Structure formats: structure tokens, C-alpha cells
């Protein structure tokens, strides 16, 4: 018994030793990476929606902006609601979101200045092939929503006050329906989680194209309704007002907004996703 416990002790110590050696290696490597970067890059805090981050768009365009403007962008990817709150609290320098009404209010209340159109993507309704509400191929999303409600077909809603959630609620309102009942499942989670739950429940859901294309191979739901004008989703970039918060980096925020709407930024947005999915995920529309 004594021998055994001694052995355990030795093995345990060995493992701890090995782990600390590995950790040490990792730490040594870290400075090498940062040495590659230009020394005086300033930090810019961007609050944006999970859709721009999860789709991979930011990973695609930000390195180029960072090189051009010598900034290091710190991305805080949250729901549109929280992103705007962060802007209102002066916790970030610039926001990139998609909820036109909330964006206009943000500017009207004096928290942001100089909103610019950047791009749009679109939403689609996806559902299981069984299609209990019979909406596959329906051109008008309003009619599809009416059918879903009439059939009480399960529909998973983000229910988190995000841009996508507001879009969905807007469509229900336009269709003059108050969605409630067992069939209407409000999950209060992000797009990826909502997709997963809708798939599990064989339910319909409203999803942005970028997230759908990125995750569709993992799940079985298929497009039911797309291309309806009510399903378009414009994104705007808004620097936080320096008159409200003196500490925000207005210069950097403006540089970011200008870069996004520049010819180069717009071109990169337009080509993102073509290689991987055969179609662009976002359509640039800066004026």
C-alpha cells in the first residue's frame, strides 16, 4: 500500500512537471509572435454582432485594415442590443450592427455620429423537409409566417432582442400576428445555438445567410423561404460620439468606418465567402 501511494505521488509530480514545462514553452513562444507586428499599433475597440464574427468576415477583412491603418482591433462580438449598450456606455470606440431603428435612435440620442451604410445580407426561413406548414418555395415571408401560425408548426425564436430577433418580431408584427403558444419556442440564445435547437426540434427558424452557410453541413434543416424583400438586413457602422465620451478613439473609429466604406473595404466584403461557399455572404452597399 505504501509503495503504491509513493508511486502515485511520483507519477503525479512527473505530470505536474511535464505540464509546467509545456506551459513554459508556450510562454516562450508568445513574444516571438508579437515581434512580427508593427510596434506602435493602437488599439481600437469594436462592438459588433455575433454574425460578423461567426461568419468569419472579420477575420477576413480586419488584418487588412490593421495593416493599412496601423490599428489593432479588439472585437467584442455580442448581440446588437448589447453592442449598442456598450456604445452608449462609452465602453467601445465604434459599433458595427444591424438594426436600423435602434441605430437611428443611438445617433439621435447623441451617442453616435456619422452612421454609414456598409453592407447587407439576407435572412432565410429554414425548416425540416417534412415542412408541416407547407411553406417551401413561398415568395412572401408574411404569407409563410401566417401559415406557420395557422398550422401551429414549431418555430424557434432567438428571443434575445438581437438584430435577428428584432427582424423576426418585425415580420410577425407586419403579418399582424402575436406569436404565442407551445409552438413558439423562445430560446434566448445566439444564432448558432438557435440553429442547433431548431434542428433538434425539427422546427422552423429565421436565420441569417452567413450563419446558415457556415453551419448547414452540421444540421439537416433546409431553406424554405428566401429572397423576400422583408428578409433583407442592412449593416451600419457608427463611431461613438467623442463629445459624449472624450476617451473614445474617434480618429480610429472614423478611420475604420472610412476603410469599411472605401473601395478596397467594399471589394473585400463583396468577395468574402465566394471561395468557400460559392456565393458572397454580404453585399456591399456603401454610398
Amino acid at each position, binding site marked *: 500500500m505504501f509503495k503504491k501511494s509513493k508511486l502515485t505521488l511520483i507519477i503525479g509530480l512527473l505530470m505536474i512537471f511535464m505540464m509546467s514545462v509545456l506551459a513554459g514553452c508556450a510562454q516562450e513562444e508568445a513574444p516571438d509572435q508579437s515581434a512580427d507586428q508593427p510596434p506602435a499599433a493602437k488599439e481600437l475597440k469594436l462592438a459588433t454582432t455575433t454574425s460578423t464574427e461567426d461568419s468569419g468576415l472579420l477575420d477576413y477583412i480586419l488584418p487588412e485594415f490593421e495593416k493599412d491603418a496601423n490599428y489593432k482591433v479588439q472585437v467584442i462580438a455580442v448581440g446588437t442590443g448589447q453592442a449598442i449598450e456598450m456604445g452608449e456606455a462609452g465602453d467601445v470606440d465604434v459599433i458595427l450592427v444591424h438594426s436600423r431603428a435602434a441605430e437611428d435612435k443611438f445617433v439621435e440620442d447623441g451617442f453616435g455620429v456619422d452612421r454609414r451604410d456598409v453592407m447587407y445580407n439576407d435572412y432565410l426561413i429554414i425548416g425540416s423537409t417534412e415542412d408541416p406548414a407547407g411553406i417551401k418555395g413561398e415568395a412572401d415571408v408574411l404569407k409563410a409566417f401566417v401559415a406557420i401560425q395557422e398550422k401551429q408548426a414549431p418555430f424557434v425564436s432567438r428571443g434575445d432582442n*438581437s438584430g435577428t430577433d428584432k427582424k423576426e418580431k418585425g415580420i410577425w408584427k407586419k403579418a399582424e400576428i402575436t406569436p404565442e403558444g407551445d409552438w413558439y*419556442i*423562445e430560446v434566448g440564445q445566439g444564432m448558432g445555438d438557435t440553429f442547433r*435547437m431548431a434542428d433538434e426540434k425539427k422546427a422552423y427558424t429565421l436565420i441569417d445567410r452567413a450563419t446558415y452557410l457556415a453551419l448547414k453541413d452540421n444540421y439537416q434543416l433546409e431553406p424554405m423561404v428566401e429572397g423576400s424583400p422583408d428578409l433583407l438586413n442592412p449593416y451600419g457602422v457608427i463611431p461613438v460620439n467623442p463629445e459624449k465620451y472624450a476617451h473614445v478613439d474617434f480618429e480610429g473609429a472614423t478611420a475604420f468606418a472610412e476603410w469599411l466604406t472605401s473601395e478596397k473595404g467594399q471589394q473585400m466584403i463583396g468577395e468574402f465567402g465566394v471561395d468557400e461557399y460559392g456565393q458572397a455572404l454580404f453585399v456591399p452597399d456603401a454610398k
Partner: protein
Amino acid sequence: MEILVQGLKEGFLLIWQMDAEIFDVTLLSLQVSLTALVLSALIGVPLGAALALTKVRGKQVILNTVYTLMGLPPVLAGLLVYLLLTSRGLLGQYELLFTPAAMVMAQVLLAAPIVCGLTARAVLALNQEVYDTAATLGATRRQATLSIMREARMGIIAALTTALGRVIAEVGAVMLVGGNIRWSTRVLTTSIVLETRMGNFSTAIAIGIILLTISFAINLFILTLEKRTFRYENTIQIT
């Protein structure tokens, strides 16, 4: 600071007005966590005691495993239960995913090792004397074992309170297997995450206060019970 004060105000208001949704959410939190606690106690206490009192091969390895599982990341526990219950999973046919039952399962996975491990420790901390004394007084093996459990009850109560604290405050597992569905599987912790994500910080704080108040009340209840059973025994005093 402003948000904290606002949160406090809102919290009292939510409780005072018995907001239907928050009442529902609070009730489910209690139901899920207390059920998980009872099941964990039924599994963990006997198992922990057995591990401490019997000689089995590989006892050290088993104990070590239990101690490791005490630190199981909630989201990993959730994932394991998720994979078990998903429609393509082993128990998929029972359609338990996104139900309170699934949440209880995940929480038992988190709490049972804590109850088991801490019970084992409490029993192991006792001396041979306890058993010997009981045996000398003519107790049967069974009675002597029971008297050991009686001696270890302080540690077992600590195990149960720790386990309850872990499950009622846990969010990763219940979010995953429960799904945070409104009016169905939304609990206090997942509500806090949701409100935070929506930027409603004061509401999030308010719900946090409700959660802490409940924990406080439960612990008060347990402590009162504890005091009653220890009334005739001396506690340590430094003179």
C-alpha cells in the same frame, strides 16, 4: 454603481410584485436544483461512505477519479448529457432534450461527485475509535456503521450545501441541455446570461440578487437544522 443600485431596486420590485415570469423561472430553478441535490445525495452519500469504509482494489484510483470529477466543467457535463439525449443519441427516443429532466441529469452529474467525494473525506477523517467504541457497546456492524455516519454528519451536510451551491449557480450545463426556453426551461442563471446579453444589466443584477437570496435562505435553513442536532455537543472553543 448606479446600475447596482438600480438592480437592487428592480430586484425588490420583481419580488414584491411577484412578476409571473420571474416567479416561474425561480420555481423551476428550485425544482431542478433541489431534485438534482436529492438524487445526488441518494447516490453520493452511500457511495462515498462505502468508498471510505470498505477495502476494494484500486480504491485510490477511484477516489482520485471522484475528486477529479468534483471539478468537472459544467459545460462539459452538459455536452455529455446532450450527446446522450440528442435525437441521434443513445436515449434520443425518449425526447428528453430541452426538458427540465435533462437539466436535472446534467446537474446530478455535477453534484454527485461532490457529495460522494466530500462524504468520503468526512468519513475518512474519523478515527477507528468511533467504530470500536460502538462495537464495544454491543452494536452490530450495521449499527456501528450508522454511528460512524452520525459522527460524520457535519461533513456530509457540508457536502450537500456545497453541491447545492454548485448546481443552483451553474449555467453552462442547463443552458446547453435545457435550452433556456421561455416558459419551459429558463432558470435564474440562464436568465442572467440572457439579460446581460441584451444589455439589461440592472435586470440581470436583480435576478442575481433573487438567486443569492434563495441560497441564503436555504443555507439558513440547513444551519438551523445543524444547530439543533448539535445542541448537546460541545463545539471547539479557544480559551
